[in-house]
């Protein structure tokens, strides 16, 4: 039985077509293999900062390839992601972050100011830029072994929907529900 959404990636694209194009970003194209390498490096980077598991990590990035890398990296680190809307009004953003209380926020240097404005700064910020600037060694086996303790009812991500009280509700999605949905899509739509 599939337990972790990452099995799609590990057993699927990485096994069958690692050098195929995975993502076309605004300024860079990534193959599946490259995507894997960046994501695992990023997981190592997170775990270097703090050895955590099953904790929420927010991603404050505009939609681009780096968002996917960050999400994947968070999953490889055994944690779950919460993609934030960079265009959200400050107060709304603050409400979300206060509610979720993420272990880290992943962002980029251009967006630091926006986070500072809502009082979020210091060592709970990880810049995605670091991924391209410093050498980060990672041990593939160790990363995968660590994921054994994540079970299918553990969260995969948080999605914020509007709440009538003004505080958005963070819906906690687990691995199981995503696998259930994607398996159905694959079957029904005959993906390959």
């Amino acid at each position, binding site marked *: 039985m599939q337990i972790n959404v990452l099995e799609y990636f590990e057993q699927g694209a990485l096994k069958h077509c690692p050098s195929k194009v995975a993502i076309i970003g605004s300024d860079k194209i990534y193959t599946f293999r490259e995507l894997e390498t960046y994501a695992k490096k990023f997981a190592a980077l997170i775990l270097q900062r703090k050895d955590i598991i099953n904790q*929420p990590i927010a991603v404050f990035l505009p939609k681009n390839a780096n968002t996917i890398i960050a999400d994947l990296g968070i999953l490889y680190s055994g944690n779950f992601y919460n993609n934030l809307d960079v265009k959200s009004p400050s107060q709304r953003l603050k409400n979300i972050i206060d509610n979720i209380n993420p272990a880290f926020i992943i962002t980029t240097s251009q967006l630091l100011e926006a986070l500072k404005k809502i009082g979020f700064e210091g060592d709970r910020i990880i810049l995605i830029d670091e991924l391209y600037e410093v050498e980060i060694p990672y041990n593939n086996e160790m990363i995968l072994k660590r994921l054994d303790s994540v079970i299918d009812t553990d969260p995969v991500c948080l999605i914020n929907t509007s709440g009538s009280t003004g505080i958005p509700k963070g819906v906690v999605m687990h691995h199981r529900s995503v696998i259930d949905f994607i398996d159905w899509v694959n079957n029904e739509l005959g993906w390959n």
Partner: protein
Amino acid sequence: MKNSVINFLYDTVRKYPDKTCAVDEGESLTFKQLFLRAYRLSEALKLSNKINQPIVVYLPKNAMAIVSFAGVLMSGNFYVPIDLKSPQKRLQNIIEHLCPLRVVSLRRYREDLKELLIQEDKIISLEDILSCNDDYSIEKVIENSRKITNRIIDMDPCYVIHTSGSTGVPKGAVISHRGVIDYIEWAIQTLKVNENEIIGNQSPLFFDNSTLDIYLCWATGSELHLISEGLFIFPIKLIEYLEKYKISFIFFVPSVLVNIAKMKLLSPMRLPKLKKVIFAGEVMPTKHLTYWQENLPDRLYINLYGPTEITVDCTYFIVDRKYEPYENLPIGFPCNNSDILILNEKNLPAEAGEQGELCVRGSSLALGYWNDDAKTEQVFTQNPLQKNYFDRIYRTGDIVYKNERGEIIFVGRKDSQIKHMGYRIELGEIESAIMALHKVDKCCVLYNEQKQEITAFYEAKEEIAISEFNRNLVKLLPKYMLPRKFYYLEKLPINPNGKIDRKVLQDKLS
């Protein structure tokens, strides 16, 4: 992803229609035969036009019971196996509480069912529906059945198993399809089972150890032998049976393995086909296990652990060496996709070596107790370590700790912890110390609350002098843990599941 366990059978009957599926004393069914009979039953059950309803299977352990389980599942309902030998009052309680849609049985049990106050029109006698001999095609049957079984979701019930309740009313643990699929896929991988396996079943079908035997058979195409209860009273005959039918895989309660060791029935020449010896349900005394290991070397010995409420098992230990008589056999490590928490009295994770209650999280958790919210809420609770989202754990009531190798060690039941002369004592610890005595075959230690006495019951070839007990036990236990009374019994009472019956012994104390 599978939505119903019946998909295991759909796949296997296509692959191995003519392979032997289930064998009992009287008959042997191929997968195709079993499947087509099950289909006829499902057609009869479908007449009620309902799904997700409880169907009681009132049958002894035989191939027809396996047919019935499959038939119930193909009708989109779930099965409830019943112990025919249970006292009538207990069965009445269960039935009344369950309100089954139908009861599947045989004509010869008509009178029994009448006494249980089951309405005539709810009873299906298998003879009535299996007499016709029309030959359907497997594909046609699968296609027809899928119309119903595709409506089942994986969180729907697959079966209900009753466990004893302290108030006298048995609790019905409701197990989901998902729990079983999760468990069996783990088992196939870890126990390395394929279509060549020949499984010797000991567990009664109303006891959830049978889940492993039945679904390994359905999922892999292996052969399932429903060994009659009588053979377990005569271990010599049991071994002859295992040899005759080339049984390669057994999942027995320790009591049975202990009886064989006690009678010294093994030698390296015996049971050449037996490759996997798996046990669970109670503590396996290491000295008897050593006897097995020495006489049947190069077998896979696996200790499984788990309560009914988390779908059979949640930890496993592949025995990797010989254990001294005073050592505890670990229950080992969490099964894949099961998370084990060990919580101390403050509800915090126990440190290494610290004792705490074993709690389980994940897809294996039962959906709760049938029609009993109060009892469900007592033991299925929010994970105290995590309050941000719905995250249920099952509190087993079993006390364990992790040793220096990270292996989980079972200590005893939370409710078998006693307070004696101001000390907190785990009765299981006294039991393992007594089992270290060479002459003792089985034992059970209980606390006589009224007289404030630790009392030991033991089984051995002959009575053992109290001085001999004490001489040995003082080497392993502090003085305050020594039993005050020792009762010698030729045979300890055994409950219907094949385990030592503590309740009967407890009653003797008062």
